[in-house]
C-alpha cells in the first residue's frame, strides 16, 4: 500500500473513531462501516483501529474473525448470502446454489475475479415462509428458483453498471 493511501485510510479511520467514540463499545459500529466502505477490514485497518481505541490489535482481529458479516479477505461489491437452513433447504436451496455457482463461476466462500460478487452460505435469514431466500447486501430476495438467479445477478450488474465506482450498499430497496 502506498504511504499516501495509508495516510488517507488512517484519516478516514480517525474520522470514524471521532464519529462513534473511542471506547471499546464503538468497535463494532466502526468495523461495520469499514466493511461497508471497503468490502473488507484489512490488517492495516485493524491495527489503526486498535491504536485509536487503545486495545491490542489481536482483540480487533478476534472480533473480525468471529462475525460472519465482517471479513479480512476482500469481498465483492455484492455479497450474496444464500440461506441454507432447514425450510430453505426443503424448498430447494441446493438447486439455487448450483445455479448461482454456474452463473458466477465461483464456489461458496469465493469472490469473482472482477471483484463484483462474493458468494456465501447464510444461516436462517428469517424468510422461512418464502424460501429459498437470499440476501444481496441489504436486499432480500425470496422464493428464488434456479431460473430467477440470472435475473437477480443482472439486476445487480445493471443497477451499478460496469464502470460504477460506488458501492451497492448505499442502495436501499
Amino acid at each position, binding site marked *: 500500500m502506498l504511504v499516501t493511501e495509508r495516510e488517507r485510510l488512517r484519516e478516514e479511520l480517525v474520522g470514524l473513531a471521532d464519529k462513534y467514540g473511542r*471506547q*471499546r463499545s464503538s468497535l463494532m*459500529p466502526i468495523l461495520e462501516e469499514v466493511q461497508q466502505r471497503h468490502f473488507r477490514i484489512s490488517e492495516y485497518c485493524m491495527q489503526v483501529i486498535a491504536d485509536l*481505541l487503545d486495545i491490542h490489535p489481536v482483540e480487533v482481529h478476534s472480533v473480525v474473525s*468471529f462475525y460472519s458479516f465482517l471479513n479480512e479477505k476482500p469481498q465483492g461489491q455484492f455479497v450474496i448470502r444464500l440461506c441454507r*437452513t432447514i*425450510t430453505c433447504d426443503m424448498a430447494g436451496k441446493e438447486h439455487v446454489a448450483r445455479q448461482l455457482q454456474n452463473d458466477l463461476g465461483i464456489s461458496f466462500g469465493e469472490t469473482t475475479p472482477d471483484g463484483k460478487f462474493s458468494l456465501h452460505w447464510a444461516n436462517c435469514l428469517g424468510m*422461512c*415462509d418464502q424460501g429459498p431466500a437470499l440476501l444481496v447486501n*441489504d436486499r432480500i430476495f425470496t422464493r428464488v428458483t434456479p431460473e430467477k438467479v440470472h435475473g437477480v445477478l443482472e439486476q445487480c450488474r445493471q443497477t451499478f453498471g460496469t464502470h460504477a465506482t460506488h458501492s451497492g450498499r448505499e442502495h436501499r430497496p
Partner: protein
Amino acid sequence: MTMGTKTGELTFSRVEPGMGLAAALRKAPADVLTEISRSNLRGRGGAGFPTSLKWDLAAKTEAERKYVICNADEGEPGTFKDRIILSDYADLVFEGMTIGARVIGARYGIVYLRAEYAYLRPHLEATLQRRREANLLGQNVCGQEGFDFDVEIHMGAGAYVCGEETALIESLEGHRGEPRNRPPFPIDTGYLGQPTIVNNVETFAWVVCIMAWGAEWFRSHGTGKSSGYKLFSVSGDCARPGVYEFPMGATIAQLLKEVGGEHAKAVQVGGASGQCVSAAQFDRTIAYEDVPTGGSIIVFGPHRDMLDVAGNFLEFFVDESCGQCTPCREGAAKLQEGVEMLKRGKCSMAYLNELCSLGETMQLASKCGLGQSAPNAFLSIVKHFQDEILGRTGKKRR
C-alpha cells in the same frame, strides 16, 4: 377460544399506539410492575422467564445508569415473527421499551438488530425520529418531568449466539459474542456492568397490550402457567405458512389444522434448538409447561427424510457454536458425523447409544443455551424415528 389469525389480523393491530404508554404513565412504576406481574407475562423469546421478575430485580438495583435492551437478533431457524412485528408494529416495541425504562429507571435503550435484517433499519430509524418529534422519546417523555429516555439501534454482524442475552451484551461492548457465566445476571451486571433488562421484541409489544387492556384481559387467554397469546412463525410443508397468533396452550393438531398441515409426520417446535414432535404426540400443547417455543413451527410432510432434518440442524450448530466450551464445540461436530454415518448405513446401535449419551452430556455440560439445546433435535429424531434412520443402504428412501 379464538384460533389462529394470520398476519394483519394480529392483536397488535387493534391496540392504538400510545394507549399503553399513557396508561403506564398514569400509574406509579411499582403499580405498572404489579400489573405485569398479575398478567403472568413470560419471555416470548422462548426461555419463558417471568418479565415482571426480571424488571423488578433491575428496578431494585441501585445504579447511575441502567439500560433497556430489545433483543432483535431473531436467528432461530424457522422464526420470523419479530421481522413482522418490527415491520408493522415497531411503535409497540419502542413503547414497550419506554414502559420498561420507566419501571426500572433507565434512560438508555438499545435495539440489537441482526445484520440480516439491516433493510429494516431505515424504517426503524424513521419511527424513532417520529417518536422523538412527538415527545414519546427524548427528554421529559410525554411531559413527565424527569423521565428521559431514548433508543438507539445497534447492528449485529451475523452470529446466532448473540441472541443469548449475555453474548448480546458482549457484542454490544465490542467483543466476540461469547456468552458469559451467569451469575452475575444482566439485571445487576449487564451492559457496561450496569443493570440491564434484555427482552424479546414480542415481549415488549405484549407489555403495551397489557397496559392498554389490563392484566385480566391477558390472563383470560392461554393456560394457567402460560397466559396470553403468542405469535408463531409457521413454515415448511403446509398450505398456508406465515405468522399466526394463538393463545398459549393450543395443541399442535389445532395449529396444524389452521395452517393446512394436517398430513405432517412431524413438527419441529422451537426451531433448531427446540424438539421434534412426531404425529403420535400432536395432542401435546404449546406452552411453557409442555412444549415450549420462541415461536418457530416447522412442519415436515410424510415424504421428508428426518435424518436430513437432523443433519441440517447440526450443520447449523457446528457453524454457529462460538467455540468457547468443549461440549458444544466438539459435541455438535461429533453428532453431525454420526448423522453422516447413519445416512451411509454405517452406524451400530452401540455407537448410536454413545451419540445419544454425548447429546445428554452436551445438554448438561455446555455453558449456554446454544450448546445445551444443540442436541435436542437430534435426540428427539433418534427417539421417534428410529425405524427410519437405522439400517440404511446408503440410497435415499423415497
